[in-house]
């Protein structure tokens, strides 16, 4: 796997060590006024951005933490948080 991922605890490591956790979608919706449609969208709908995407990764062969990175899905390269804001 060509991907490298920078774990906030362990640093830049080989992509083999991580498991993908999906796009960043925010916390689980509130119970109040929750419609089945809204729930389904939360669980199943993805933006599938062609470009920089905020996403979750789990360091399974390392510290065992979940964290977010910014990755350009077209190049598979990570971006520093500052860079993406530009």
């Amino acid at each position: 796997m060509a991907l490298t991922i920078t774990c906030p605890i362990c640093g830049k490591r080989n992509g083999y060590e991580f498991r993908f956790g999906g796009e960043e979608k925010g916390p689980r919706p509130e119970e109040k006024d929750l419609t089945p449609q809204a729930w389904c969208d939360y669980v199943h709908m993805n933006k599938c951005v062609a470009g920089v995407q905020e996403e979750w990764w789990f360091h399974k062969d390392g510290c065992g933490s979940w964290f977010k990175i910014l990755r350009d899905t077209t190049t598979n390269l990570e971006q520093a948080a500052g860079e993406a804001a530009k």
Partner: protein
Amino acid sequence: MNRLSQLPTLKIDTTQKLAFTYKEKTYFGAKGDTIASALFANGVRIFGRSLKYHRPRGLYSLDGECSNTCMEVDGVPNVRCENTSLEDGMIIKEQNVKGSAEYDMMGFLDKMDWAMPAGFYYNVMHKPAKIWPLAMKQIRKAAGLGKIAPDHEIPGKYDEIFLNTDVCVIGGGPAGMTAALAAAQKGLRVILMESRPWLGGCFEYRSREYQSRQTLHDRAVQLAKEVEKTENIRLFTHTSAVGTYNNNLVTGFQIGKKEDIFDQRYVEIRANSVISAAGAIERPLLFDNNERPGVMQAACALRLAKTYGQLPGKKAVFSVGHDFGLEAAIELHDLGLAIACVTDIREDGQNLELVKKIRNRKIPLLKGWVATKAHGMKTVKKISISTLDGQISKTFACDVIVASAGFTPVTGHITVNQGTLKYDSHTGAFLPDQMPEKMHAAGRVLGLEDPKSIEVSGKLAGLKAAFDCENCSIQELGDAKKELEALPGPARGSKLVTAPVKGRKTFICFDEDATIKNIKQAIEKGFDVPELIKRFTATGLGPGQGGIPGHNLPLFVAKYQALPDISIRPTNVRPPLVPTLIATYAGANHKMFKTTPMDEMQRKDGGIFRNIGVWQRARYFSNDFSSRKEIENVRNNVGMLDASTLGKFRIHGPDALKALQRVFVSDMSRVKQGRVKYSAMCNDDGCVIDDGVVIKQGENDYYFTTSTGRAGQTIEWIRYHTRYDGWDFALVNLTDSMGVINLSGPNARKVMEKVVDIDISNEGFGFAEYKTFNIADTIPVRAMRLGFVGELSYELHVPASYMKAVWIMLKDAGKEFNIRNFGVEAQNVLRMEKCHIILGQESEQRTNLLDVGLGFLWDRSKADAKTVGAVALRQAENDQTRFKLVGFKMENNGRAPRDGALVVDDKVRGYIATARDSFSLNEAVGMALVEAPLSKIGTRLEIFEDECGDDRIYGKVVAMPFYDPEGNRMKM
């Protein structure tokens, strides 16, 4: 075997003979030979037959650029003989022939080309429709190269190695070596990969002067020595780079030497900076019969002589388009090859010194002439040449045609890593345009041919790599750039693609038998870009990965469509850039299984082990795979099972309960100390993913088990579903540090009494209760009373290091009752009789909590959105289309169906999850997942087993559980 000797460039040792078998006869090659060079030395000119037309094929390149010399070696088909070293005792067979390579009964197909136009398998033989099934059989029989048995196990040892480095250099030629040296001198760690077994690249076999009193060969040796003695260069020879990826990952495979522990090794390198110095291959010249045995590339002819000590034939005609071709003609002439004529595609622009040398040797040199046809039924006998316009022609008798139109830089390593190429009208080649980040090209990849330029471009690339690693100044880079600019740039290349011929027998792709005519047909059909034509005609899809046609195809298409230069685009190449064995990717066959603390003892007791998930577990304890004795012993006496593979976790901290509430479907606040709570976890679709028991050890301190298969993902799962909450809890995976013994059967209490000091009467330690105590005042044990197998049973969780001791104590205590082991299969049947489910057995990915009848675990008062799976369960609750888990018995006391058999009527209605002939009940019972309408008690189930034809067996839905429905036995 007459070989040239005394050449400093030779890589063979003729004093050491290697015997090999070819067509059931013994031949001899020299040490250092490849299979192809040894066969050639023994007079073999036709190595095999081509894919489609069964045309004879011979030695064309020496680096495996086409499938011409792919043969079956020691039972392995499609071995690239040009770069596979000969070994003593090899058995070599030709492939894709009916008869022999010389006399192939399928050879008539060459005359049938009119019946096989481009893409014929897409557009002929399907009208009328009846023909296709017949035609398909014949086509399939004829298709493909080489034969292999489906159960063939590839011999050899395979390994893998993963490396990190500062700089990775692809290619051990002059540019690669100078690049590696430049980077190494900057103090960086360098890996140098070279696909041939030795360093030197295009310098290695040439006697041209490098500088006064030093040949290119001498220079190559000098550089190689320097590289070998540089400590921070790690050298991988006989290692082809097959892929480059972003973040500078380079993959390759290495062929082992005799003394290595592997035959082939997968190499994966993570580098800070990569240098591509893979050199160039020759662009084939296209003329009629341009692949007849006897036609070969200039470097092939020259290396055959200089590396392997044999002349390519008796009399040659050269048809080349570059100075290297002239150089090869001069060298081969001096080594004794008669040359009838040298034709150069170029009207002018030749190196004058080379022209003079040719004239001095009285070799006729025709400028602006080109080969038009190779004559000879099987091998070359004669050649026709003509002027470029085709007006004037001549013929010469010859047995070798050295043909080469130009050079093709090897740019695959750049483009697979998303670098781009641009057509360069000066060289006529595709040269690197935009390089991938931290990747640099050097040498002939840049179109350079001048030896000094090649080396300095290597040095510059080495310094650029050092700059990437912050070990080089801009000043130094600038100096190296200036040095390169002062030297000759890329040489002007010829642009000619085809001789003036019609092209019916002019092969642009050897591997797939694609001719110029085929390309024209494809274009006429409307495939207008090379990438589409490539697919329709299969040009470049063969094992050579476009090495032969990759450059000519886009040039020809552009010419045919009269396109301007700028619109010429190369076709894509993909990894692996060089054919690689899947076995090499798989690497060493490690036994990657975990063993429990009781592994050894259970093996001593006759356990028969199976790989189950990541574990090796004792599945049976006798050769009776129905496990009858083990089952009956648990039902009537007492047995013990090693259940150490269960996932075991501790969760503690201020927010531990909140985390459990999130992932478990039950209300975990109701877990009472001293009691065992059974619960399950779902995913967000309500599908049940895990079940286990939870124990409260203290306030916000819980111990819980998971199923064997889920243990690896449990921490990830819980952390994932609480990742936004910032809750404070710790999760500890105790799976490997704790072992579990399950002691089950009516006599279990009697055995326990002898081992533990606490009150274990039914009143003192009742069903579903949990206790901690020490055995022999030392060994801390967590004990639970559970009923998975349906009998009185104690589950003892013991630190792994004490497992043996407790196991032996229980065994000794049970001796008087004839205690015995039971395995996973016995447990499977026992729990099935009780209709206790195993997830993955009674469920699949789509099965939700309600389907398997565990809906009672779900606490509906918890907030749906805050409990994983609850929202989906609420929606699925009234869905009548879902599968239901049912129990069934077989009709007429029939046998049990196989697990996974289908429940059918006129279509599939469900499947059998687990079914066994039950000894406890004296009939066959099982559980099945069926559509809801079939789940009513009394419904007849029609069961379809694999290959049963029209014979069905029948079962009937009955109430669950089958054994001890009141559950008295586990509570006694």
